[in-house]
């Protein structure tokens, strides 16, 4: 666990399984790699980076994405290509989501936890610019964007010129939380042809 995201994904994925959504989580762990099924019924695959030495978070992330693709593709083929959508959190695995979309036609939701502009203001170093370019790619290629507050919805629209209709607010503290997530998924599922 690095931040609060791990807890959130754990809670969300268990809820999804309860609502009869087949849920696979692809995530990172340095050594506890492989596939496991949690007691909740959530299937988890953990991948590590085959490249051990890095010069920064970016190179680490960009190489790890191939392992994420490998794991995700494996799930896709084992499920007889019946994957309705991918929900990707923040910029780290946007490259994998984008490739899977272009290659296999699986649409994705970009769920925003935070933005580079807020994490490292004024975010104008080449390093931050690279991350911002990945965030931009994510917003451009995503079928829908999920945010947790009206404020973030405005920020995504302001910084990346994303049309507001594309951004849905799903507040995790509201009673209707899971219902909202499922509604969002339903608007995305069904492949790219329905776009």
């Amino acid at each position, binding site marked *: 666990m690095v931040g609060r995201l791990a807890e959130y994904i754990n809670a969300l994925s268990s809820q999804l399984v309860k609502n009869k959504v087949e849920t696979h989580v692809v995530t990172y762990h340095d050594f506890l790699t492989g596939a496991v099924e949690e007691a909740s019924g959530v299937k988890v695959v953990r991948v590590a980076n*085959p*490249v*051990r*030495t*890095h*010069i*920064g978070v*970016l*190179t680490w992330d*960009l*190489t790890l*994405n*191939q392992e994420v*693709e*490998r794991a995700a*593709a*494996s799930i896709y*083929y084992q499920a007889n290509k019946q994957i309705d959508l991918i929900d990707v959190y923040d910029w780290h695995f946007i*490259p*994998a989501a*984008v*490739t*899977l979309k*272009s*290659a*296999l*036609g699986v649409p994705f939701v970009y769920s925003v936890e935070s933005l580079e502009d807020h994490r490292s203001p004024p975010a104008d*170093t*080449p*390093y931050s*610019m*690279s991350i911002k*370019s*990945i965030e931009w*790619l994510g917003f451009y290629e995503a079928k829908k964007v999920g945010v947790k507050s009206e404020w973030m919805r405005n920020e995504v629209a302001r910084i990346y010129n994303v049309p507001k209709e594309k951004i849905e607010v799903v507040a995790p503290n509201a009673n209707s939380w899971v219902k909202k997530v499922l509604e969002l998924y339903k608007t995305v599922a069904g492949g790219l042809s329905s776009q």
Partner: protein
Amino acid sequence: MKHELSVMMFSWEFPPRVIGGISPHVFFLSKSLAKNGVKVYVVTCDFPGAPAHEVIDGVDVYRIDSYKNPAPDFATWVYLMNLNMQREAAAIANKLGDKIDVFHAHDWLVATAGIGLKHVFRKPLLVTMHSTEMGRRDGLHTDTEKMIHETEAWLTYEAWKVICCSDYMVSHVKWAFGLPEDKLVMVPNGVNTNVYESIEKEDLKPFRAKFALPEEKIVLYVGRLVYEKGIHILINAVPKVLEKVDAKFIIVGSGYMKDQLSNIVRSMRLGHKVLFLGFVDDETLLRLQKCADISVVPSLFEPFGIVALEAMAAKSPVVVSDTGGLSEIVDHNFTGVKVYPNNPDSLAWGITKILLDENYKNYIRENAYKKVQEKYDWEKIAQQTKRIYEAVLGEYSKSFWA
């Protein structure tokens, strides 16, 4: 109906984008494969003025947006470029339907795109290792170098077969990444002799006069001005050669050692004998190779040594350091002269040996030209490569991915 064998190739350079030897390699390989009934899709980086998609002699070339993402340094740029390459290549492959049979990557510069697409489409990946970070840097000294080395190791691990252009590279790559013997295949690099034949009848005297006096012999070096190419060894050999023969040393190419080298030349007061030309266009280069009385390849590390082969195709006699791929291309006293690597005295000996003996010189260049035509012909190389694709597909057809 079964479609023809088709391959998607990844390369960070393809003409008109030329940085090193991969660009001409992929250019001629893909064209010759197309002639041999293989459908080739090349995915490469964009270049100002070059179209995003074009068909060259049956080869579909796609140029991707390689500068979309800003990057803090070269290595990070490579991985970000791969992100776009992978995304655009995925869309192309998806559009083609189930048409791509194999992916073929050239060097670590396209490693992550190749690896990712292999898994997403579940098609076999082949790699040609043109060089290694360990060889280029003579060891691994920084985090960047280690990272690149580990990326190379990962790429060779993911590849179904690893192609190297010389026996030397086969053993080097096997050692560097601990690969099993049967994963490696040697397919030589090729050279196109036609381009030299086309200027065979041209009177090159006026052209030659722009670079050297009639009584001066031309000693030609073509390559980047970097440590691994051993250009400093040649510079050290200049006064030793001039003791015996009147010659003009023409240095084509540029690199980080340029200022250092020209300072050494100036301090030896030999500025009038050594000409640094920088990067030249193809037309000039072909004619220089044709005019050269001798071509020198003094490399300290050389996976293959295409420059030597080009000189041989241009019928210019070669002196090479006895290392890496050069050792295999040149047979001493028969198709060229081999000298001790990292040894200016030995190099000067080799150069004067050829320049002082006209009969020997002609004997060497005729033999060399014959060898080039027999062994380094793109047609044969394409056929060998096609057989590797077919063998891999045969194995693949028995796997659960098929």
